[in-house]
Each structure stands twice: as structure tokens, then as C-alpha cells.
């Protein structure tokens, strides 16, 4: 693939099970294109520096901060955003455990939790902290989020199925 910097690149990306056609600058981040062109505003800009996790989406099932990934890098990969999750156990757990207040960091946290539960259904406290330490929540005491992911892990029947 090649783009002339002065022109825009037309490309297809796979998002939430659909093939979407977008026009990008090579310098555009995936976050920017998801929000501005596809209207998928669930992924939030919080720092655009890879520090806060609010823009976390899944790329082939793995959590990625979409502010530190170019949109052109997404070609050929499966992208999942919060809009692609429906009635998942982790979303229900967030509701049940009051694991959010303002809701701004929530999509990023949920995407990370969702991937963790899929990839490491047997995750222990250390691994939960390692994974979820990638996201910042400014409203809760974190305990609510911790309880939400733990309730999902505890009820997860599919142990050991790794995507790697």
C-alpha cells in the first residue's frame, strides 16, 4: 500500500463485522477515523498519547489504543468498538456493579475487560491489574470496575481458549 501524502487514501476497513469504506490521510489515527468518518464515537479521545485508555478498541480481539494506531494500519484487521458489543456479560456487570459514573472512560474499560475475559478467562488479580492498569477512571474508586470484571471471570465457562 502506498499513499501520496498530499492526497487521501481510499480504503476498506472491517469494523464491527461490516466492511466500511473510508478516506484517510496517512497521518490520521484510527481513533479519528472511527469517530469522524464512521460516527463510532464510543471510543473517546482522552489524551491522544496512548496514556489513558479511553479510546481502546479491539484489533483481532486484542485491546489497542486507537489513538496510537494509524487508520492505514487497520487494513486487513478486524476492528471491534463498543458499538459492536451487544448485551455482553461485561456490559451487564458494569451496570450491576455501578462500575461507572460519568461514563467517559467506560467504553475503553469495557473493551479491555471484554478482551481480558476472552483471552484469559482464568485471569488472577495480578493479571487483572496489569491489563486494567492501562485505563484511567477519574470518577469511581476502581473497586466497582474490579468487581465487574471479577464477576464476569468467575462466571466464564470457557477456560483456556486463547486467541494468541
Amino acid at each position, binding site marked *: 500500500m502506498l499513499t501520496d501524502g498530499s492526497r487521501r487514501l481510499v480504503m476498506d476497513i472491517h469494523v464491527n463485522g461490516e466492511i466500511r469504506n473510508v478516506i484517510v*490521510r496517512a*497521518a490520521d489515527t484510527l481513533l479519528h477515523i472511527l*469517530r*469522524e468518518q464512521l*460516527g*463510532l*464515537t*464510543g*471510543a*473517546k*479521545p*482522552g*489524551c*491522544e*498519547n496512548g*496514556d*489513558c485508555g*479511553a479510546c481502546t478498541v479491539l484489533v483481532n480481539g486484542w485491546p489497542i489504543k486507537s489513538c496510537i494506531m494509524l487508520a492505514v494500519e487497520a487494513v486487513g484487521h478486524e476492528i471491534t*468498538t*463498543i*458499538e459492536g*458489543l*451487544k448485551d455482553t456479560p461485561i*456490559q451487564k456487570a*458494569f*451496570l450491576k456493579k*455501578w462500575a*461507572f*459514573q*460519568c*461514563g*467517559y*472512560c*467506560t*467504553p475503553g474499560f*469495557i473493551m479491555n475487560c471484554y478482551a481480558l475475559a476472552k483471552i484469559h478467562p482464568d485471569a488472577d*488479580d495480578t493479571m*487483572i*491489574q496489569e491489563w*486494567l*492498569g492501562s*485505563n*484511567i*477512571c*477519574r*470518577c*469511581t*474508586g*476502581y*473497586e*466497582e*470496575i*474490579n468487581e465487574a470484571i471479577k464477576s464476569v471471570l468467575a462466571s466464564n465457562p470457557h477456560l483456556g481458549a486463547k486467541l494468541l
Partner: protein
Amino acid sequence: MSHLDIIGENVPRKEALEKVTGAAKYTNDDIRPGLLHVKMTTSTYAHANIVSIDTSKAWKVPGVRAIVTGKQFPFLTGTPLEDRPPIAIDKVRYYGEPVAVVVADYEFQAKKAAELIKVAYEPLPVVNSVSEAIKRTAPLIHENLGRYKRVEEVYPEDNTNIANRTKIRKGDMQKGWMKSEVIVTANVSFPQSDHAAMETRCARAEILPDGRAIIHSASQSPFVIKKVISRYFQIHPGKVIVHTPLVGGAFGGKVSIQLEFIAFLASYAVGGRMVKIVNTREEDFITSPVHIGLDARVKLGCTKSGELIAAEIIYLFDGGAYSDRAAIISRAAAADCTGPYNIENVWCDSLCIYTNHPYATAFRGFGHSELTFAIERAMDLLANKLNMDPLELRLKNAIAPGNTSPTQVPLNVSNIGDLSKCLEKLRGLMNWNEGQRIKIGNNKVKAKGIGCFWKNSNTPTNAGSGAVLTFNPDGSISLSCGVVEIGQGTKTALAQIVAETMKMDINQIHVRMEVNTETNPEHWKTAASRSLFMAGRAVLAAAEDAINQLREVASIVLRCAPEELAVGRGRVFLKSEPNIGISIQEIAYGYTYPNGNSIGGQVIGRGSYILKHLTKLNPETGAGNPGPEWTVGVQAVEVEFDIKNYTYRIIKAASVIDAGKVINMKAAYGQIMGGMCLGLSFASREAFSFSSTGVIQNTQLRTYKIMRLGENPKYIIDFVETPNIEGPYGLRGLGEMGVIGIPAALANSLSLASEVELNQLPLTPELIWKTKKGDQSDLV
């Protein structure tokens, strides 16, 4: 769930499902083609004259539609004191201050152009701390301070860097010191830090052909935006329409009006087209207002038995380059300057100081976690000197009915609550009596510290709120009010108040999350832990109004007097014969007789509320009534401290708070827990790092530390409920309370653990190491 016990129940947030599905929309989520983008050029100096601004290269960037500089709109903004140009005019007063603004078709174009604006500066001496700022020889940050317009109560001192001074003079200091047998002095300080809400500040503006200004803003103060846009741009208030959707965290930082002015000026510069400005994280940290810093000195005197007699207190707040809400914070800290203790003789000077730092605004707690840190450190020093249990010392002096506040307000059970009860409860919850410093081997000790707090609000004396209940055809109710949903869940709690009053199913109460100043009744600001208090009262009044209307119509249909009727479970019925009645559905839009005749009309309940009997503080003595009630409480922290490495883990944190009445238990827990986490993060690691020239070194979330999951302690939360007569169902303000005593409690626990007095924040292991080293070298 029975409607009869909806108060106190864990009703899920009304906006919960939107928030876990990504459907929740915040200000920056409204993606619109054709919208123009605004980017700022900001100051690279903390204090400098602007010599020239060269925009020639910026203009050459394709897509640039306008470039705005401060000289084009030379007016000053700010409440209580008008001291701040929205875009710097002749000089810059802090690193990161807006100097020019670019409007372009695309964001990257605006950014590129903003980067190409060349500003020539003539550096001025930098005032880099409050101690430098109050020296007589200090450079003046505002040369024309005496001439600035005062919009609210504020006392700047001309030819100084003092933006406000509040004085408290209660009792007789001379007598107080004479009676004092034990005296301690604590000097404490901490630098500015930040709110760091996850959603950075954002605003859109558009000016329609008929002159209407439409503003969308991530704000805690949409109705203030309406007022100030109207005032500064001379637009009829009815023609300024402000929209605030869900807000992604605020913590006081979104009380100020800043980007809204810039967005309006940018829109004006492009003929009124819609423009959007979104802070980068870096801008949100330093260009927009920050959390205040403080240098304080507290001198306490007591009898040998530990009865407090006198307090002499100096608070020097680092308000930064512009006074904004910092001036009011300094007043609020004065009003509650002693902490929740009964002291007969009080002298306090609380100052808001100008420095060449970013300007400060409200931060959750509004000066109280700050003053509490100072007071509670002094209390622990006193307990130590008296060789008294710190909890006992606090219990002995706990504020109580019959005492007076520093501003000489007589206290009663309703306005002050029950601090002693909170302390007793905490004693058990923290297993206080097992001892406060316990060696656990392996170079580790466990230590506990506490901090008591109180907080009243310092709103304008006429702050108020309104509510409208509009009935739907099915008899359900849509609640309209001006409270912003910033994550605190007030609107869900308001729905509970409606459900309880109307004795209705909570699912029949619909709440609009977005605020629109054109259609919602005004709510002062979503701040000061006053939203549920004030809007709750407005909602109660609106519900009563609706009940009266329903009974009026029903009385005609049921052929009785309205007074004979009651409302509940979706019906209006005879009190004496509950089987005789009519469903609300049948009369919500008026009643239609079988022959077609109709009476009544849509039921629309309305209510409003205004705070009563508040007064301004006397400028010489501070006497006056600053707010309707105090929330009191006590918090404690337990740490596990490594005596070799000076590192620590926060094991437990506890809060016992007199909430008056808890409306939604889960929401209340969440507010307190979140507040505690914020307080622990602030106290343990958050601070701006300033270079010798006032340049901030940590403007990103990778260098500005925030506590993350796993570092949080186990939380213990409990409430005492001493009703406040004025509050709906007896409630007291709660939103800010989780933060207030935490920094002090952490400092007290670590001081005990490390056996050195820690009077600064943030409490990093390096600070403890340094203090310890200083302490040892003092002994040599």
C-alpha cells in the same frame, strides 16, 4: 420495588444503558460536516510582554478561515473579579495561556496554522510561588488590579499580588493565647495540580442570522455561560442558548467559562458559522484552569486536657495568573477555616494570591480538602504534644449544636449534624483501638491516620433552582431541570424524589439528561454539592404543584373537594374511600366526559427554590451566613509502610459521613468512594512540576500521575443520618465529601508510620525520604 421506600434505594442510573453501549453522547461526539475547527497558539513563557504576533505563515495554510488575537476583542472576563482576557492582549501571565486562535476547515489545518504563528515575547520576571508573590518587591502580575471591575463580593489589594483577602475575627485572641497551655504551629504546603477529568473541555459556538448565539459546552455552568455571553457580547439573554449534554467528569474544573468565549469569538470571526474547540490533554492540564495550591500556617492553642482555645490561621492560596473562582475558594476556606472544631477565639486571613502559574478554579471540595490538610496536620501535632489519642482529641473538640462557626453562625442539630457520632462509628470500623502504629515485620509497619472535615457551600446568597414536571399521555412524568449530569447521578436521585412524592413507579419518571438553557428552568451551577439539595427542593415543589392540579381536576370528576383526595400508584383517590378514584392517565391531559366535553388540560407541575437567609461576610470580621448547612464527617487511612525504602501501600480507607438522608445508597457509595480515590490520588502523587521559569514539566498523563486500578485501597463507607430541616427528605450535600479529609488522613498515617512530620503534598516516597533525611541532618 414499592414506591413507598424508593428513598434510599439503589435505583439504577437513568442513563446507565447509554453509557455501557457507547451510545452516550458528550459535547465532542456530535460529528457535523461543515463545522470549522479551532486551535489555539499558547504562551511558551510564564510571564512576558507580547511584542508581536506574526500570522503571515499561518494564513498560508490551506483551509484557514480566520485568525483571532486578543487585541481584536480587548475585554476582561471573570467572576468575581474581571481580570482575564479570553485571549492574552499585551502580556502573558502563565505558561500555556491562549495568545491566538485559528479557525480552519479541518482540525489538522487549524493545528498546523496555530503552530506556524510566531509570537515574539519580552520575558518578564516570573513569580513562581505564593511566598515570592507576597514580597513587597515582587513584580506585579496585574498592574491595574485596583481598577478591575468587581462583579461579586471580592477584596483585591491594589499594587500587590493579592486578588482577595477574607478576614475572620472571632472572640479575643489575646485572651485565647493566655488561656492556652499547649501551642503548636504547622506550616503546610502543596503545589497546584489538576482535575484531569477524562473528557477534556470542549465547546461549540454558532451565531445565527437573527443574532441568536448557540453554544454547546462540556460545562458545569450552562446558565452562567448564558449570562456571561449575554453580558460581554451584548446579546439579549433569551437569545443565548446553551446546550450541555452528558459531561465526562468535571470535579469543579468545568465551572469556569473559558473555551466558550474563544469559541464565540472564533464563530464571530467567520460570520457566525459553527466552530468547535476541543482541548488537547496538554491544554486541558495547563491552558484551562487547574486545582489550586496552598501555603498555610496554623497555630493552635489548647488546655492541658486538650480543649481548643485559640486558632491563628493564614491561608495563602496559589490562584495563579487570574483570580477566577480561586478568589471565592479563599473566602470559602476562611468561612470554615478551623475545621469542624469548637474554637472560641479565631483569627484567620485567607488570601488568594496571583502567581505566574495557570489560573485555578473550583476543585471538588472547594478549598476544604486544602484547609483540612492544614488543620488536621496541626491537630495531629497537638495530639502528639499532648500525648493524647488523635481520635480522642477530635472527639473532645468536635463541633456540636450550641457552638458557633468561625463566621459566628449559631449551630443547631439541623445545620451541623453529628460529628461525634461519625467519630464513634469510625473508631469501630477502623479497629482504631488496636493501636495506630503496628510493626508487622520485614521492615514494614502498619499505621492509621484520621482527618475530620466539615463543609458548607459558598454559593451566591440568591442561588436557586427550578424544575418542571410535564405529564405524558400515559400518566408518566418527564422531569426537566437545569442540573448537569457530570457523573454524580443527581438526576436519578431527583427522579426518586418525584417518585416518592407522587408515590409513583420510578420507571414512570423520565429524565432528560441534556441541559438546554432555553427550555430547562435555571439551576445555578452543578457545583458545591448543592444540586440535589436545591433541585430536590424545586422538584418537591413541582410535585406538590402537580398533585394539586391533579386533585383539582379529579375533584370535579369525583365530585368532592380537592383536599379530600390523595395521589398514589398512578391514581387520584378519596382518602376515606381509596376504591373511589381515577387514574392519572385519564386526567393528565385534562378529563374528557363521555359526551366529549373536556376540563383541565395537560398537567405541568412547576417548582422553584432559592437559598434563604444567607448573607455576605462582614469584610472586617467575616461574620455572616455562607450557606444553608454543613456536612460533617471523618475519614481514615491505613497504610503499610516500608521503613527501609519509604514506599507504601494504601490498605484501607474509611469514611463516615453525616449525609442527613441518603437518597440512593449505591450512588452515595459511588460518590464517596470515587471522592476518596480522587483524594488519595491527589494526596499521594498529583502535582504540577514547575521549572524555575514557571514552565510546567508534566503536561501529559504519563508524567502527571493518576492512581490506577489495583492501587486503590479497600473502602469502608458508612453514613450517619441527622436530618437537615431545609434539605429534601433531610439530605445534606454529599458530592464533594469523599475527598475532603483524605489528604490529611493519608499524611497523618504516613507521618506516624515514618516518624517524621509530613506537611507537604504529594506524599511520594521521595518526599518522605527527603523529609526524613532533613530531619536526621537537623539532629546532627
